[in-house]
């Protein structure tokens, strides 16, 4: 029987498309009367009378009654007539073996290769794989009988928990579905799923996002439980490399959601070989950046400060190291990344354009593991595992270990005492108190410091801490209580110059509390509701003299504080199998609080010292100004057939904290500003429409999304405006409206040796000074392109696995050059030649194009080997194309000369080593 199982398993492995007809065959002809006997009896008789061997699963044929009269028919004809009206298929090979299988006939042509393969690979390693494959084949094809048959019951409820095969951790977001009616369920954060199915035989498919499709044969008799262990990290024949949403992509009610798992990110070629969360998401359609050395990213024409970056519930205000060359997340602590471009879940808010959810791991439940790696600049180590049965932890750290890059420079530049260093640290602990209660703790810290001379040190830090209590009231209602602190600051200190010594800085702290509830009232209605509170304390800037002799005068801009409260309610409503909607709303109340001095200006006039009417002082926690209003999240999905769907969505958002910058890129010294009585919250709405199709049993997926977004109360800077240490920032900003629209097309191949995606997106982002603004109208009050408006974008990500251990990745990116303001004339003024600039962003720098390549070599995968190691080597910017980052003009021998500055102007090779114990 075992061999039958293996063979049947193979049929599932190899099937790529449906065969409606089995191979026609010649062979012994069958005659005789088979009057209502069981298939088993029929098979026995055929085997006895002819030279056939018939392989089948008892369960498959249990309900078959053979009632035929044959007269010199081929076995094929006989079987075809027996199986008519069932989903059973047969296959007869040249050795007259007959394989009966469900749904698809066995295709032996490919299976032959597999035998060869098995024969050839006699090493220990191959044994291991074969064994594990066989084991998996067993559970995949074993028929699980669930419950006892209750007469008259039509439907039954199947519940259970999905865990990782290797880690034992609950798998969140896995989809359990069957393909006849496309009934499905998605596992929750503790891996639990719940699906109602008609009583009877089913093939359940379990799809982990970014993972492997697992399946179970079940015979569902009545309500019952089936726990399923699935692979998370896949080293197998049909491994899926690139994360996919597959069925979920077409079936999920939300749209504009992208997910990347660590495995995909690890294979992407990266600068200096550092696996990088933010650089990875830049390969997704709709995500752009102004250049290679910028901290921020732009989603669907939104500014960089409109992205909420969450790392296990902590808001990370500066997600970068070294000016954005690296992102601030240690890849070993990260499981996956979700980017919500449109269908932002109702429990999140506060930023207009996207939510980037970086899911950190809480550690392996089985055993203590150590991961680490060494790249060209950094070293990192992570330890994870269980403390005891109920507690798991993960602690990781990363640091630059050398200034070789700068040392290299010292030889031929004047930057003698230059130093740049960064480190980050993350810790997560999860503790299960009992079946109903769980506590999690997260801490994150990052630190950057650098100096270009002996005297000036620049630095910035993120510090985050939070505590989560998850409580299950009952099977239908659960609650997350989250409390924490997020902190960000930067500072510049100057020393050794006696009367010029100073300390300068900015810091921002938010204390937050969130209560999130999820209530499954009914199979069709899943409610999310809760309350989020954020208390902001922002120190907009200070400069203080250092030492007795310093001549620098102390300056301190008043600290700001505010309380943001959001109440939300959302309903995931499955109207029918084909139609589902997500409807949600948030109500926001934002209070700008004292102690502070509020300035009031003449209404309708530009804010300037001349129009200042009154200054009023408020005491601590006294309410200075309240902004409030609703936000809506609506999306719907309509399935067309089983493999495609249409989705539409509309959502609005409000944002109370603004990043003020007058650079094209985000600089680490850009400051955040809270909305107050003069600066209104930013507002945006987005309308989006999408079409999704999966082809060839989810092997390929295709999607098109269109969107249009309006934004208002954005802040642009006034001419000559400065932000740092400016106590009246409202006098230096311009209220600006924004508009963005675009289309995203993506074609993705998820399985096979060659996998990856091709995407093209068109994206415009335009700004216009608000007509209410009287101070200044940029470009005469017309629409002008945003700094990151790059209309045409194309990305190709390809990965080819030569063997299980060797793969090559290629990454090609193209985008239109970003807009720039160019000098168009010069004139004499104040004794010097001055430059007159064109309208804001009237020109563009040359287009951007880059190809990267990497080779990933995995060590062997003996399960019980002490350490697993892997190497990644490759070349960033393979073609060595000099992509301009910026263009500037400087006089050379009296003639103004334009230059373009390219950051990674030549091929940059890299190598990194990682290990896992």
């Amino acid at each position: 029987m075992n061999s039958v199982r293996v063979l049947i398993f193979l049929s599932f492995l190899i099937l790529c498309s449906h065969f409606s007809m089995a191979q026609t065959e010649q062979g012994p002809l069958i005659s005789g009367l088979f009057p209502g006997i069981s298939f088993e009896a029929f098979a026995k008789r055929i085997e006895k009378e002819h030279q056939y061997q018939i392989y089948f699963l008892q369960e498959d044929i249990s309900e078959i009654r053979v009632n035929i009269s044959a007269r010199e028919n081929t076995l094929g004809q006989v079987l075809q007539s027996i199986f008519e009206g069932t989903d059973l298929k047969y296959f007869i090979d040249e050795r007259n073996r007959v394989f009966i299988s469900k749904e698809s006939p066995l295709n032996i042509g490919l299976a032959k290769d597999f035998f060869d393969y098995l024969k050839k690979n006699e090493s220990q390693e191959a044994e291991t794989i074969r064994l594990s494959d066989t084991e998996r084949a067993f559970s995949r094809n074993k028929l699980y009988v669930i419950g006892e048959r209750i007469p008259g019951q039509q439907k039954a409820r199947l519940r259970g928990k999905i865990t990782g095969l290797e880690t034992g951790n609950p798998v969140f977001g896995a989809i359990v579905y069957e393909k006849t009616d496309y009934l499905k369920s998605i596992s929750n954060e503790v891996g639990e799923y719940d699906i109602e199915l008609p009583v009877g035989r089913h093939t359940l498919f379990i799809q982990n996002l970014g993972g492997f499709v697992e399946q179970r044969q079940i015979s569902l008799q009545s309500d019952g439980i089936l726990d399923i262990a699935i692979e998370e990290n896949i080293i197998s024949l049909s491994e899926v490399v690139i994360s996919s949403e597959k069925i979920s992509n077409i079936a999920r009610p939300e749209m504009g959601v992208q997910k990347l798992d660590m495995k995909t990110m690890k294979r992407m070629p990266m600068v200096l070989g550092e696996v990088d969360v933010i650089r990875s998401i830049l390969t997704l359609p709709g995500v752009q950046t102004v250049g290679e050395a910028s901290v921020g990213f732009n989603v669907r024409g939104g500014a960089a400060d409109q992205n909420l970056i969450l790392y296990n519930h902590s808001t990370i205000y500066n997600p970068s190291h070294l000016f954005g060359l690296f992102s601030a997340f240690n890849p070993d602590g990260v499981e996956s990344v979700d980017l919500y471009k449109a269908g932002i879940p109702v429990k999140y808010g506060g930023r207009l354009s996207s939510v980037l959810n970086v899911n950190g791991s809480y550690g392996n439940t089985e055993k203590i593991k150590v991961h680490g790696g060494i790249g060209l600049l950094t070293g990192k180590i992570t330890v994870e595992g269980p403390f005891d049965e109920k507690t798991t932890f993960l602690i990781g750290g990363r640091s630059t270990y050398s200034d070789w890059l700068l040392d290299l420079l010292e030889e031929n530049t004047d930057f003698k005492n230059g130093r740049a260093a960064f480190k980050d640290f993350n810790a997560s602990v999860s503790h299960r108190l009992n079946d109903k209660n769980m506590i999690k703790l997260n801490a994150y810290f990052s630190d950057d410091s650098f100096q270009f001379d002996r005297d000036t040190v620049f630095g910035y830090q993120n510090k985050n801490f939070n505590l989560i209590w998850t409580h299950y009231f009952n099977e239908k209602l659960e609650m997350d209580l989250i409390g924490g602190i997020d902190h960000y600051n930067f500072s510049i200190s100057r020393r050794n110059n006696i009367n010029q010594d100073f300390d300068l800085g900015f810091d921002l702290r938010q204390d937050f509390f969130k209560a999130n509830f999820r209530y499954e009232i009914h199979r069709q209605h899943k409610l999310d509701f809760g309350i989020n509170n954020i208390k902001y304390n922002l120190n907009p800037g200070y400069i203080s003299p250092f030492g007795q002799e310093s001549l620098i005068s102390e300056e301190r801009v008043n600290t700001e504080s505010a309380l943001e409260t959001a109440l939300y309610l959302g309903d995931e409503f499955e109207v029918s199998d084909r139609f589902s909607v997500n409807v949600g709303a948030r109500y926001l109340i934002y209070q700008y609080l004292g102690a502070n001095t509020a300035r009031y200006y003449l209404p309708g006039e530009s804010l300037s010292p001349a129009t200042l009417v009154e200054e009023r002082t408020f005491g601590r926690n006294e309410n200075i100004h309240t902004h409030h209003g609703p936000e809506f999240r609506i999306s719907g999905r309509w399935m067309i057939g089983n493999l495609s769907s249409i989705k539409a969505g509309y959502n609005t958002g409000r944002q109370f904290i603004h990043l003020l910058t007058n650079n094209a890129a985000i600089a680490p010294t850009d400051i955040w500003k809270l909305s107050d009585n003069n600066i209104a919250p930013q507002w945006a709405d987005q309308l989006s429409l999408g079409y999704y199709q999966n082809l060839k049993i989810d092997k390929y997926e295709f999607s098109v999304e269109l969107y249009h977004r309006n934004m208002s109360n954005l802040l642009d800077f006034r001419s000559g405006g400065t932000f740092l240490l400016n106590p009246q920032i409202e006098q230096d900003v311009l209220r600006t409206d924004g508009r963005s629209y675009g289309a995203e097309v993506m074609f993705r191949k998820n399985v096979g040796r060659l996998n990856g995606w091709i995407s093209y997106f068109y994206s415009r982002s335009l700004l216009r000074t608000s007509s209410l603004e009287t101070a200044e109208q940029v470009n005469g009050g017309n629409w002008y392109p945003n700094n990151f408006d790059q209309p045409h974008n194309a990305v190709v990500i390809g990965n080819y696995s030569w063997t299980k251990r060797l793969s090559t990745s290629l990454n090609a990116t193209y985008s239109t050059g970003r807009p720039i303001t160019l000098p168009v004339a010069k004139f004499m003024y104040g004794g010097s030649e001055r430059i007159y600039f064109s309208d804001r962003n009237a020109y563009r720098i040359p287009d951007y194009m880059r190809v990267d390549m990497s080779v990933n070599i995995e060590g062997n995968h003996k399960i019980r080997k002490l350490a697993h190691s892997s190497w990644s080597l490759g070349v960033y910017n393979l073609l060595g194309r000099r992509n301009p980052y910026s263009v500037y003009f400087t006089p050379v021998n009296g003639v103004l000369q334009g230059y373009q500055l390219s950051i990674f102007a030549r091929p940059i090779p890299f190598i990194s080593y990682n290990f896992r114990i």
Partner: protein
Amino acid sequence: MKTLKQAYYFYLFAMILSVVSCRDPFYPEETNLNLNYLVIEGHIDTGGEESIIKLSRTGSVFNESTGSFEGFILETGARLNLISEQGSSWSFSENSPGNYSLQAELPSNTAYSLNIILRNNQSYFSEFIRPIDSPPIGSLTFERKEDGVSIYVNTQGTEDAQYFLWQYEEDWIYRSPFNTFYKYIPENNEVEFRTLENQIYLCWNQNRIPSIVLENAGRFAGRRIERQEILFIPEGSEKLSQRYSILVKQMALEPKAFTFWETMRKNSQDIGGIFSPLPSFIESNFNSSSEEVVSPTIGYLSIGKVSFDRLYIDLQEIRPWRPIIEDYLGCRVSNDTITSDDFEIRFGIGGSMPVEAVYSDMDIIGYFGAAARCVDCTLRGGTTTKPEFWTD
């Protein structure tokens, strides 16, 4: 503070990225156009000193720089009138191409508008501007530093006058290496005694390029601006080789005019660096009343009483100071006697000048000569005429 920050960034970035980054020439095709916008520059002094308004046109970005006003197309033959709110009018006269001058005591309790009618009859007018009188300059000081001399202004801002603009004029004495009491007269091929009035050993030079310095007194406690650096003279500059004078003009601006200057300064500096600010739009307080003029005007007129102060610095105050002047390298007095036979060749054509007489008994038999550049200070741009204001 802002520039400090940017400078740090730029250098830091350059440092980190210069390993991998690179710089290539960039030639934008589209911007090689000639916009020919009108540029109006000037401050009108209500205190009775001469006010100059300069009119010129913008040039192409890629024209070779002459570094001078005259290198641009100048707007000549225009008629300029200053009109007060009360209706009084003062007209300017063009004292050199594109330079229009007015010298008048103007009442400071009214607002003024400058009207300009160009030769082509296009007319422009400024907004009405209320004069802001500058408080007197507190003091001018200087400091001898390791690598040069810094000149500072100290001033006390007031409620009205908070934003300051300084311009300066420099004058200095310099010497040629060799003094001479003789003069070659080519007409009769003789060497004569040189009178004191004709001396060419001591010259005055000047710098009238109006560099600008800006500061906001509101930044400082009690609106007191102290040690605001006006100018830094690097070590070895000839300016301080004998006696040096600087005239500092202090003007008080309205906030918008100050922003204008600041923006222009920033736009001309570090544009296009990694973290450089984006170029800002330059505002103007001029409008055109001619319908056919749609292009913008560049310039921001300011009006008010200007404060002046002058500082002298003598060599002995800053010693040691050793100017190195390239023109004087290799200067020496030749030790061959040039007799009258050789006068024409050596002094007439040869570019030498008689420096020292050679006596035999009591008679001059010839002269020792030196290269003209080593003797005649006027060859290096100066004048031997003492400026009117100069005091010793």
